[in-house]
């Protein structure tokens, strides 16, 4: 009897949990929201306090992370990721990659129109990809360099011919390189299109107003094709006003006073407060972004000696940095491959515990006396300065002297790119969907973000193989082999950890889940009932 009661109770619990459970990704790209009822409320306007003012609305020119916060609302890409980072169909319903990996054929949705009424079809995809590949000053041409040509097979089928097999292609088409823009709108906009990309996408919202440094207005696309898992048409909100507010204190205050309902990039120090506020919700998960120290490993610089890089990596206490420097925002880590990447190895913890004695030994093995160097940090950011001071104190325990120098970000960037910086610099990376995007350009010999002048033939070969192998399991092994070398044996950098994707919202809205790319999916947001 009691077994029967337990069974009934169990079934009831499962049924209740299932009814209230979070979203499950659907092919149409629609997910619900955690705790949302089956029929969310339609209508309403919200204000989104964003950390900076977006620069380029045209994905072709866009180079800043901040721009993507608008792009994801007004444009759709060929494919997207779900909240776990898995690539899912979007404007392309399915795709086919043959065994040789030299082509990718997409089958497109047929129920999609641009905001300006023009048709979305295979010809439009070809126009967009060719534009990204060949237009003067395109920020996408490097990403799409492996694409040889794009062929229109029929109105709903488009084929990408690749120069060589290139496994990360789909992950690039998730973002700006795969975003579809109306040819009519782009051509009419001309030089001003990137500032006035009005009604130019197929996305859930339309850009209708953009006043620089003041606000951006996005209005509901009433003809949007997306539906949530219950079949409800998306989006739910009528209007989003984006306000660029650079100070995290002021952003947070706007959320607390009700002047904004959504805010991003909340400072670590404010997280305990936000969690304690009855009118606010806070969600967080590890992002693709990483935090690292870049040593100048070029000839004639201190860190030309690999043992010094390893000594610094060994002496740093990442757990303490996370707790005291980042207020537990994000996670400690050691590599480019983030927790949401398929190749992430949770057991790879080469410098889990700081070991000042081992660091001292590495320095003495070099035989050139104590290690002293300059640690460059961007001026005007007190949080980064505090973290640098914490690192300085940790290194002191291993008799390593780090002299902190503050420089303007533009200067650091200039010196890094010319490989003239002394000696260790502190610059973050916003992260990419595929491990390749977090690794190749930073580690591979001579690539644009390889600011440490790192060069290791074996690592280069492993990274090349990982690009060309379509098999995910094989790619996972290759990345893991490579990271062992560029993190541990012959370190390219000193990784400190991974950033966090955050979403702070007022309880007046039903928030969507957080995505590891840190972009809010407003189409799933609705006003609370």
């Amino acid at each position, binding site marked *: 009897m009691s077994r029967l009661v337990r069974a009934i109770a169990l079934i009831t619990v499962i049924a209740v949990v299932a009814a209230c459970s979070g979203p499950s990704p659907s092919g149409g790209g629609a997910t619900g929201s955690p705790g949302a009822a089956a029929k969310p409320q339609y209508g309403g306007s919200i204000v989104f306090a964003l950390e900076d003012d977006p620069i380029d609305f045209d994905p072709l*020119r866009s180079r800043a992370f901040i721009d993507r916060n608008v792009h994801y609302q007004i444009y759709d890409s060929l494919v997207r990721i779900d909240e776990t980072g898995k690539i899912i169909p979007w404007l392309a319903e399915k795709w086919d990659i043959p065994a040789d990996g030299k082509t990718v054929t997409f089958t497109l949705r047929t129920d999609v129109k641009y905001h300006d009424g023009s048709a979305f079809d295979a010809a439009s995809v070809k126009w967009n990809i060719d534009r990204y590949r060949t237009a*003067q000053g395109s920020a996408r041409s490097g990403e799409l360099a492996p694409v040889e040509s794009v062929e229109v097979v029929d109105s709903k089928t488009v084929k990408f011919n690749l120069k060589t097999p290139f496994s990360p292609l789909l992950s690039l088409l998730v973002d700006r390189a795969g975003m579809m823009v109306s040819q009519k709108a782009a051509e009419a906009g001309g030089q001003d299109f990137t500032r006035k990309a009005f009604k130019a996408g197929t996305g859930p919202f339309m850009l209708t107003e953009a006043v620089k440094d003041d606000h951006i207005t996005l209005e509901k696309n009433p003809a949007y094709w997306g539906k949530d898992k219950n079949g409800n048409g998306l989006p739910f909100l009528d209007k989003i006003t984006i306000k660029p507010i650079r*100070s995290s204190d002021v952003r947070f205050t706007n959320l607390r006073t009700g002047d904004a309902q959504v805010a991003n990039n909340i400072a670590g120090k404010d997280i305990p407060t936000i969690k304690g506020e009855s009118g606010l919700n806070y969600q967080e998960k590890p992002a693709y972004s990483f935090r690292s120290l870049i040593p100048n490993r070029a000839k004639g610089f201190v860190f030309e000696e690999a043992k010094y890089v390893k000594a610094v990596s060994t002496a740093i206490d990442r757990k303490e940095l996370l707790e005291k420097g980042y207020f537990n925002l994000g996670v400690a880590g050691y590599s480019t491959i983030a927790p949401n990447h398929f190749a992430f190895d949770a057991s790879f913890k080469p410098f889990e515990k700081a070991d000042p004695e081992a660091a001292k030994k590495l320095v003495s093995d070099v035989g050139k006396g104590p290690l002293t160097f300059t640690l460059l940090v961007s001026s005007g950011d007190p949080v980064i300065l505090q973290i640098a001071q914490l690192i300085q104190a940790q290194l002191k325990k291993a008799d390593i002297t780090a002299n902190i120098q503050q420089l303007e970000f533009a200067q650091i*960037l200039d010196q890094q790119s010319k490989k003239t910086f002394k000696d260790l610099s502190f610059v973050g990376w916003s992260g990419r969907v595929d491990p390749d995007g977090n690794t190749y350009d930073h580690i591979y010999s001579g690539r644009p*973000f390889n600011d440490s002048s790192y060069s290791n033939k074996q690592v280069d070969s492993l990274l090349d193989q990982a690009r060309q192998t379509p098999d995910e399991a094989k790619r996972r092994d290759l990345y893991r082999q490579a990271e062992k070398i560029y993190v541990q044996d012959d370190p390219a950098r000193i990784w400190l950890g991974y950033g966090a994707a955050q979403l702070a919202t007022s309880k007046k809205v039903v928030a969507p889940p957080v995505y590891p790319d840190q972009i809010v999916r407003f189409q799933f947001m609705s006003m609370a009932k």
Partner: protein
Amino acid sequence: MGQYILRRLALMIPVAFLVTIIVFTLVRLTPGDPVLVYAGEERDPETLEQLRHEYGLDQPMPLQYVSWLTHAVQGDLGRSIRTRQPVTEAIFERLPATMELGLAALLISVTIALVVGTLSAVKRNSPLDLLATGFTLAGVSLPNFFLGLILILVFALALRLLPPGGYTPLKDDVLDNLEHLILPAITLATASLAVNMRQVRSSMLEVLSQEYMRTARAKGLRERTLILRHAFKNALIPVVTIVGLQVGAIIEGAVITEQVYFWPGVGKLVVDSIAGRDYPVVQGVVLVSAFSFMLSTLIVDVLYGVLDPRISYGSRGG
């Protein structure tokens, strides 16, 4: 007078020319590559070269200057490297917000300074005078960004009386505009209020100690008439100089306040542009700012003549 004004206006051209050379050289001597900053996380070398070419940054500096100047004299200050917005459009789009904030702050500052400064001088060492001196010290010592944050915390967060920042154009909603204006205007007014109040007080004290004031008092004039009709006007000359300079500095004066309250003015534009090494915008803002400064000093000089008839702008006086 007319001739004097014309001559002063003509003099602005060589000054502006010098300003352009200095600014053009200085922004380019500042370390940092605008294209690299703009490139952010997309650093394809071929594209970077294309961008440098597109903005003429691959040309020798003198050629870049000549090209910029040729366009500038025709009213074209170029396009922003970061946003591609025409620089003149970027400046004039933001100018109303900056002017509104700057003028509101000046109005608060000058009105209070005149009233309290005069009273402090007349009632020297009274509690009011001591209070005003204390306020002056605090006003000068408190940085704008700190005062701004304190005001936001008190009036926006704790009391929920006013919005914590933002801007509504005057033409859209007057009341909403004023609500958003109060905190930034007070923040911006505080530092100049302290200076102006001190200036009014000391200038008034000086005038009050003059012999003609003693004579007027001896003639039996009422104290109010004495202060308002005889002392006040004479005490205004140094005040006009300082306020005139403050009017000229409106564009650059609000830089920090605009950042704190995300007030979409020229100050915010210039901060972003300097950090991003956006040469055309920095050059444009400095040029406009230099002209506004020169114009305001001209107006101040003309006002001297109105306040003090002994000052004349004859052919030998200019």
